[in-house]
């Protein structure tokens, strides 16, 4: 009983009409050459994936083309000016640096502390659940609203004024959810058996954490913090809202001095119509990208060393 060899019949009117085995192959890993709808779809998906990466390269290329020539030592050490050729980013760099240090000083203890509480002390219950829901909610709040909170709370109510301290406090609040999440993950990498070994030796919980768990998870926490700072250095909106100035002709000299930051300087330049300032903005972007690249590389390197040590 032989079957007819139909060629590539796609549909059939009656259910169950059997078709022979047509000659064309249609495997997921099929023969090369034929453009089937299958392969066209795969190509489209790949294109969809590569397109944004391509645009990223174009973006970086644009910035390079615009700003590379402007990247001189003078640029890095000058103050802003009405004349684009003379303007520089020194106050912005100084402001960002101070800001990062302050923010880290505030966010690390609080974030790590919260993470330690949630991972080591908290028992499942309503309070814990409530705290965790809050943290994940906060991660979804637009950053500019943190700026409004900072404005009312730090600048006005606590009378910090439009200062570095207010800016750092606001950024610390913004980073807190991320720092907590990352620290918790780092703490989780410590196996429970390690903790139990400590308890069995008669240590109490805080001793275990301080002497064993924290040192073991420190690289992971550090990595997370560096990544958070890399994100923080690019934050603009909350700082503008609390009153970081866009034209600052001095380097901040105290916690209470007004300040500016690198992304704010870039924003200021790009908002001006003169093309010369756009060139400055591009140069500033290159500096910002370079700093972020350094931060991220350090974090990734740390993570790799951390993993190797554990393995």
């Amino acid at each position, binding site marked *: 009983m032989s079957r007819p060899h139909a060629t590539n019949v796609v549909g059939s009117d009656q259910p169950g009409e059997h078709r022979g085995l047509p000659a064309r192959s*249609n495997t*997921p890993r099929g023969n090369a050459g034929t453009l089937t*709808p*299958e392969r066209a*779809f795969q190509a489209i*998906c*790949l294109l*969809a*994936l590569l397109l*944004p*990466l391509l*645009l*990223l390269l*174009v*973006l970086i290329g644009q*910035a390079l083309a615009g700003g590379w020539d402007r990247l001189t030592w003078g640029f890095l050490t000058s103050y802003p000016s009405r004349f684009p050729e003379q303007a520089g980013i020194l106050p912005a760099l100084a402001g960002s640096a101070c800001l990062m240090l302050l923010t880290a000083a505030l966010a690390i*203890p*609080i*974030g790590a*502390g*919260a993470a330690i*509480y949630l991972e080591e*002390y*908290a028992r499942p219950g309503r309070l814990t659940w*409530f*705290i965790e829901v*809050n*943290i994940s909610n906060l991660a*979804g*709040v*637009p*950053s*500019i*609203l*943190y*700026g*409004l*909170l900072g*404005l*009312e*709370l730090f600048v006005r109510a606590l009378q910090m004024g439009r200062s570095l301290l207010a800016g750092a406090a606001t950024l610390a609040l913004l980073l*807190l*959810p991320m720092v907590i999440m990352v620290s918790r993950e780092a703490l989780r990498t410590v196996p429970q058996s390690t903790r139990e070994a400590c308890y069995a030796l008669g240590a*109490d*919980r*805080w001793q275990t954490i301080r002497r064993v768990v924290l040192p073991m998870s420190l690289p992971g926490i550090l990595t997370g913090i560096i990544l958070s700072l890399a994100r923080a250095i*690019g934050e*603009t*909106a909350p700082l503008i*809202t609390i*009153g970081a100035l*866009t034209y600052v002709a001095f380097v901040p000299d105290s916690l209470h001095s007004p300040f500016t930051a690198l*992304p704010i300087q870039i*924003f200021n330049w*790009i908002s001006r119509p003169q093309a010369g300032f756009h060139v400055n*903005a*591009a140069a500033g*972007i290159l500096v910002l*990208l370079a700093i*972020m690249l350094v931060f991220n590389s350090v974090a990734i390197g740390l993570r790799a060393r951390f993993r190797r040590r554990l393995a």
Partner: protein
Amino acid sequence: MTDLLPHHDLRRRRAVSERVVAGLLLLCAVLSVATTAGIILVLSAETVGFFREVSFVQFFGDTEWTPLFAEKRFGIWALVCGTFLTSAIAVATALPLGVLAAIYLSEYAGDRIRHVLKPAVEVLAGIPTVIYGYFALVFVTPLLQAVVPGLAGFNALGAGIVMGIMILPIIASLSEDAIHAVPDSLREGAFALGGGRLATIRRVVLPTAFSGIGASVIIGISRAVGETMIVAIAAGQQPRFTFDPRVPIETMTAYIVQVSLGDTPAGTLEYRTLFAVGMTLFVFTMMLNTASHYLRHRVLKGATL
């Protein structure tokens, strides 16, 4: 030499320091709750003050927003419309590209390719938005001006498209997780029934991952709604109620930036508009975040659709 307790005393009294430490740590954790409370309090307090001077009708019933001009109008819809327009364009850009990219990463890419490309896509999410804003103003808008007639220097289209590129990694990454989570046994079942890979994706994999993909899209929308710098740089500062993507508009977030850059004294009505707009923004993003959380919760529970 050691602190060993005398043998007969096996009861250890919990050290005072232990309790102090636990208390401090709890304080740190509770700070997150305090932050949420702080945001809500701050926004509410000033918004209440705002509504003492501006009626609900003026706020919700008008489509013009001119609180800084001589003739003051307080219709929030102008700003909401600006936010909506840019976000819609962003999602229209990011959704198809993101989901298709996620399908490629999950269904077609080999492990090595996925190892390289997935982090590369996530780099996009880490770029400061002020750089995206520069890109939108200096490159994308002039490019579009060659193609779209009547495109102004500041417009919703360029800003929206660039915002789309910014939220694409979020949609792609979360969708890829959702697609990856579809059990292989379902794919095998579909193959055994004679489905090709495309048919399997279309009829089995995507419907099963639908909740997760939906949640990722909503998170993307939420990000777009809350985005500030791209629209502040590239979309304009003219609040207007329009669906034309070629003209300058202003979003809620850009308005807050605009006022913050100025010298508005505290306690004035203009100052309070910051918080009224901020409250509106907060309500929108909270609704979106809750919706996405609900969708993801449905996925985790294994709900059958």
